[in-house]
């Protein structure tokens, strides 16, 4: 990192994003349109975001984030309130619903600064997952009711997609929603639901019709988890984490008005959501932050008077990951640039998901190796981070499923 060249920005900024951009001088080509440097406005925006995080992020939350300790619901919500008050909770939404009119570059800068500044990750389930579906396919009433409640953190959403018998083959789901007058009666079991214990709302894919083609007959329902018949059970993960759950539906009665869009069209909405989800799961900015943590761990490890960061082999392995992450960050910018010119996130989000999650795993692998015997101590969390990130190549559509998607939709195989 080359902090002295980054216009007075603190050293944690990834220097590679900031070529010291000179005023157009004699060396600058007049033909150069392609331009990957940040404008003065963008740099000022970065300062604004950075100053906001520094001023508003509670110290105890920052400390937990740096140590890799799980946050409580209260931690998340207090931060969401701050962002909401600033109008920054849902940058990707259209402005009329409480979003921003930021450029793609500004959104990128915002995400990067949030990760580098140690802010809690944005809970995607409401803001980034269900909200785009409601905005795109929901009714006016749904938009008016749910979007403000997401912004105010009155609702905490979770995702009811996977089932014990429907993982990668999501469309084989069996949870049913049977019509009974103006209601649906939901029965079934959903699983791998992140932070369902904090949630009061769940979006559910349920079969409203038995059809020949399994992708047909699925509907997208918004369900209040306080409805009688909803049970949440925790699933402890191999890192000791208590983030995920199963949710069981027993004769859960919800009004038909809780359905998004048309009956039986839920698969279309589900896929729309997954493409939004994938771009978020790449975690590029988070990985830059994780690399900083890795370096801190390696600097604390001493061998014969030197630190592990002085070990050439270790430094090169770290550098190799950083280089691939740099390549990915430009790939993501290219994808965002394409999106800003009107394209929906397409199958290339699969490539970004695959690479981003493989990089997350590579970093935590190095973290565990760097920690040596400290890895044995759960309080040090480095082996736990390694265990935990095994999930990233599984969730949001396993990396093998993503490869199938690319093979079919990009390569035409």
């Amino acid at each position, binding site marked *: 990192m080359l902090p002295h060249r980054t216009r007075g920005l603190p050293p944690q900024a990834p220097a590679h994003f900031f070529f010291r951009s*000179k005023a157009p001088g004699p060396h600058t080509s007049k033909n150069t349109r392609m331009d990957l440097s940040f404008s003065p406005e963008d740099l000022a925006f970065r300062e604004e975001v950075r100053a906001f995080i520094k001023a508003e992020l509670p110290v105890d939350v920052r400390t937990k984030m740096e140590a890799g300790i799980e946050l409580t619901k209260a931690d998340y919500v207090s931060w969401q309130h701050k962002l909401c008050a600033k109008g920054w909770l849902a940058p990707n939404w259209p402005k009329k619903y409480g979003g921003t009119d930021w450029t793609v570059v500004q959104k990128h800068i915002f995400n990067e600064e949030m990760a580098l500044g140690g802010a809690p990750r944005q809970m995607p389930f409401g803001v980034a997952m269900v909200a785009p579906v409601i905005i795109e396919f929901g009714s006016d009433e749904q938009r008016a009711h749910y979007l403000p409640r997401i912004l105010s953190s009155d609702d905490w959403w979770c995702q009811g997609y996977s089932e014990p018998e429907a993982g990668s083959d999501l469309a084989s789901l069996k949870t049913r929603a049977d019509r009974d007058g103006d209601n649906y009666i939901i029965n079934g079991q959903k699983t791998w639901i992140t932070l369902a214990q904090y949630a009061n709302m769940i979006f559910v894919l349920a079969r409203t019709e038995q059809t020949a083609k399994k992708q047909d007959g699925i509907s997208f329902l918004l369900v209040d988890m306080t409805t009688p018949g909803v049970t949440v059970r925790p699933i402890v993960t191999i890192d000791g984490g208590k983030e995920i759950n199963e949710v069981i539906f027993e004769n859960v009665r919800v009004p038909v008005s809780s359905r998004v869009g048309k009956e039986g069209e839920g698969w279309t909405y589900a896929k729309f959501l997954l493409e939004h989800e994938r771009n978020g799961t790449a975690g590029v900015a988070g990985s830059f932050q994780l690399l900083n943590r890795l370096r801190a761990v390696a600097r604390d490890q001493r061998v014969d008077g030197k630190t592990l960061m002085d070990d050439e082999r270790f430094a090169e392995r770290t550098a190799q990951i950083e280089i691939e992450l*740099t390549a990915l960050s430009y790939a993501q910018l290219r994808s965002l640039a394409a999106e800003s010119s009107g394209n929906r996130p397409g199958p290339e989000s699969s490539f970004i998901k695959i690479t981003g999650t493989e990089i997350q795993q590579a970093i935590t692998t190095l973290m565990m190796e760097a920690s040596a015997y400290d890895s044995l101590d759960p309080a040090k969390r480095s082996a736990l981070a390694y265990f935990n990130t095994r999930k990233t190549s599984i969730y949001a559509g396993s990396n093998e499923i993503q490869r199938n998607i690319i093979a079919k939709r990009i390569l035409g*195989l």
Partner: protein
Amino acid sequence: MDFTLSSDQTLIKDSVDRFVADNYEQAQREKIVASDEGFSREHWAKFAELGWLGIAFPEDRGGFGGSAVETMILAEAFGRGLVQEPFVPCVVLAGTALAYGGTSKAHSDLLEAMISGEKLLTFGYAEERSRYDYALIETQGRVDGSDLVISGKKLAVPFAASADTYVITVRTGGAKQDADGITVVLVDRDTPGITRHDYRTVDDRRASTLTFENVRVPLANVLGELGKGLPLVERIIDAGLGALAAEAVGISGIVLRRTVEYLKNRKQFGVAIGTFQALQHRAVDMLIQTELARSITFYGTMALAQDAAPAERMKALSATKVQISRSGRIVGESAIQLHGGIGMSEEYVIGHFFKRISMIELELGDVDFHLRRYVALEKQPAASSANGALTHA
């Protein structure tokens, strides 16, 4: 931030794509490869006519006002066609030496002659005991009055048999690894004392070992400053890395396309082999690596085009070389594997792409060399290239 090409750049892209399509069909290329020089003088004259030999140099450096973005556009297309003409050694390497190290009218005249296609240049830095390290120089340059007397050996000098003038690195002071004492100098091919051993490279290009025995050139041939040439060498190498990266991206893209076509057409067990998931996933990995290589090439290219500070530029180009080399190996090896036996056949084009992308992996420094340079730059952010040979940190 903008990833789109300007209208001028789009025109260049269209014309170079057309050139490759019209002139680099496999049979046409085979003829060029088999020729004495290993490239076509006719094509070279066309490059000059189209302005490609001067397009990437800023106007105040004697060029037509472009940047590394134009180089990237050309080099990517040349990669796609496995174009033989010595664009990188002559225009990008030697051209950068002249454009950024030229100090006299004679130097700018020579650059002009290169841009017009009249003079062909090349660049030599590698030595028997230096591997990729451009600061480790044993070729001696002794100042004698107003002359420089050169003795030593340069390896793998591209297309030297065809070049009128060589740009080489010599040591005019200091110990063999010092940052100080490096000089970049022009040597005309006919200067007495030069022995040339020419060969056809494994990827069908041409290269020479050049031996210099008391070769006397005027001090006026020195580019940049006598004994202070390291920053110039670094700029030359970095410019070359940018172009090689683009060439590799061009190769990766076409290799991926042809491999996918093959997977769709080749039938075994009664079906197209592209229906097999194991092969599909390998093809997807080729696509992922191609996209990573393309993305990092934008990054490296912009570091050059925006004239980033030397340490930043070097770090960006080392990152670029590491990524395109790693990606290129995965793409190349997978292409051969997915083609099966035909991939091993000299008659079939995939093997030629594979050979070229494999040699690109080595040229101007391999993965290990550039990882080391990257880490050294990270460790010593304050060290400017002029006061320390970062490669030895």
